[in-house]
């Protein structure tokens, strides 16, 4: 059974991830992203929204495929800043590596 964990989004705020809950998963970011076949970055933002902390950490290498080009942020209709969310997730994962 998978449980939703809203505290994960709060935990991420200190890494600059503060707009994940603004996203309504329309997929515009995924459509515009140069990584066209990866469901990226929508999948990662969904992990934040449902609090799938472990799932995110299991797939954390994918974050570094992001080119930080900013197209997703430029086109996001909710101004949820997906590019910054991915950068914040990288910070969270790096901090996690350094702690462990």
């Amino acid at each position, binding site marked *: 059974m998978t449980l939703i964990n809203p505290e994960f989004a709060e935990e991420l705020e200190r890494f600059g991830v503060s707009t994940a809950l603004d996203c309504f998963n329309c997929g515009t970011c995924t459509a515009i992203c140069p990584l066209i076949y990866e469901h990226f970055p929508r999948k990662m933002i969904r992990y934040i929204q449902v609090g799938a902390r472990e799932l995110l950490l299991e797939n954390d290498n994918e974050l570094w495929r992001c080119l930080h080009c900013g*197209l997703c942020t430029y086109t996001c209709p909710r101004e949820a800043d997906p590019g910054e969310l991915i950068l914040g997730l990288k910070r969270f994962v790096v901090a996690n590596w350094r702690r462990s």
Partner: protein
Amino acid sequence: MYNPKIIIDLIADNVRKTRNPFGIPKSMLNRWWRDTPVRPEGDTLLFTGLMYQFTPYIEKTTHYLERYEDTKLADYMGYSKYIPKFIAGTGLALMTSGKEKKNADSVLRNIVNILAKSNVEFFYKPELDDYSGILLYDLGDQEGFVRHAKFVAAKLKRAGVRKLITVDPHTTYALKVLFPKYTGESFDVKTYFELVSFKSENGGSRVTLHDPCFYGRYLEMSDVPRKVLANLGIECVEVINSEHATNCCGGPAESVSPKLSKEVLDRRVEELQSTGEPIIALCPICLGNLKKSGAQVEDLSTLIARSM
């Protein structure tokens, strides 16, 4: 794809110990100014951020990364951190083509000539010209970036420097946006092409600009190079994905996945070549990456200098 942790740890260790991501001694890396007449003192510092100087080394490093990506040898890369920095950095410097180093240096010499022709007063002091740390920021090593950025900002502050002229989008973004936010130090930052004040009718050519993501979207200054070129009589033939909507060249992925970088590059090059005009890059990462495709590409500064 390489394990990002290995790449990040290696780059962070290099920056911590040598102040640049490749571990190359600065005396070997930054030599372009030696035969160039630049004032050593002044009010406004030319701050290259060493990015153009890195381009031959990026090419050499990615050549090996391409060869070993997704092979068993890729996992051994982590051991390279145990090689003393001086030996690893000097080795890389000696393995890198002198011709490519000269090409990278010529971009900076052209920029000096462009500034001089525009009657801009500036000085250059290699001791004050440091890497901005931007790659650490992009890779998510926030702690490493902030520590390095504070070192760079404090050095500039101690030297009394408040005005900077930059030459690439990544360093410009770091100094304009990230340094005030994360170091508490603000500088008056202008890129060299914002300062071009001359006109010419010598141009008479057509080119296609590849806007870097950081000038196009993050700093919203795509109009500036277009005005410069228009004043030189050079026409820009646009692709659909330009200015704010520019497409990435794939360069940022080359340290973690050269395969992915090439995929993105091939798509962008196809789009840029559809105009049939030579491509102009404004960023050392884009320039190096677009060159890899075999496309006809040169730096904006080369075009401006030739049109003076």
